[in-house]
């Protein structure tokens, strides 16, 4: 099971900062879209490296493939 975390900061002036953690790829974008619909409009968005990481299942497959290549070499 994957752990998805969200940190939401609401300033005293009402501006909102949302930080989605743990969700990768499509899941991360879905959280961002959902929270945007709930709260309002996007002022800015910063993508970090984790967003582009494959989800857990894909990463395992990749590691297995690399291992096979190593064995053959």
């Amino acid at each position, binding site marked *: 099971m994957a752990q*998805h975390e969200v940190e939401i900061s*609401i300033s*005293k002036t009402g501006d*909102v900062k*949302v930080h989605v953690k*743990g969700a990768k790829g499509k899941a991360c974008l879905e959280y961002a879209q959902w929270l945007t619909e709930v709260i309002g409009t996007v002022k800015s968005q910063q993508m970090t490296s984790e967003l582009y990481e494959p989800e857990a299942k894909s990463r395992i497959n990749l590691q297995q493939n690399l291992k096979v290549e190593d064995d053959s070499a």
Partner: protein
Amino acid sequence: MSTVLILTPIIIGSWPTISAAVVGAAAALGFTMQKAAQEVLQGAKVEEGVQNVEIELAESEILAQSLAVNQQIVLTKGDIRLTVERDARGRCKVCASGKGRSKEELKQAAEEFTQRLTQCFVYNKVMKELKSKSFQVVNEEVTQDQGIRIHVRRWVD
């Protein structure tokens, strides 16, 4: 980290939803809610030296079908009175008035209130939506700069 969003809130809700945020903001800023808003407004005499300032929440909409005619909330703190109501275009409007107060002082009071109203509205809405998605609250705190920080988590397959 995955993604960081900075969002500008839009306040859209029924009158009860807005009212809940108004009550929260009033409590945070030390305002007292008047029970009979209409009586207060009708009984208010026009006095010399009483200034009025109106502020409209641009990104707001109070759903008309849920709002009774002439429904308002009146808040007082010392000699400052705030009236929260729905204007003709359906937007949330805050009117500040007070004897012996300058327009700048009243504008500042109204702006401070609308900002806190926005904060309360967003908090109420976000918490409701997070619970509907089965998020568990890990931590919740009011920061030194009077912001609210919510940390939630859920496990997914």
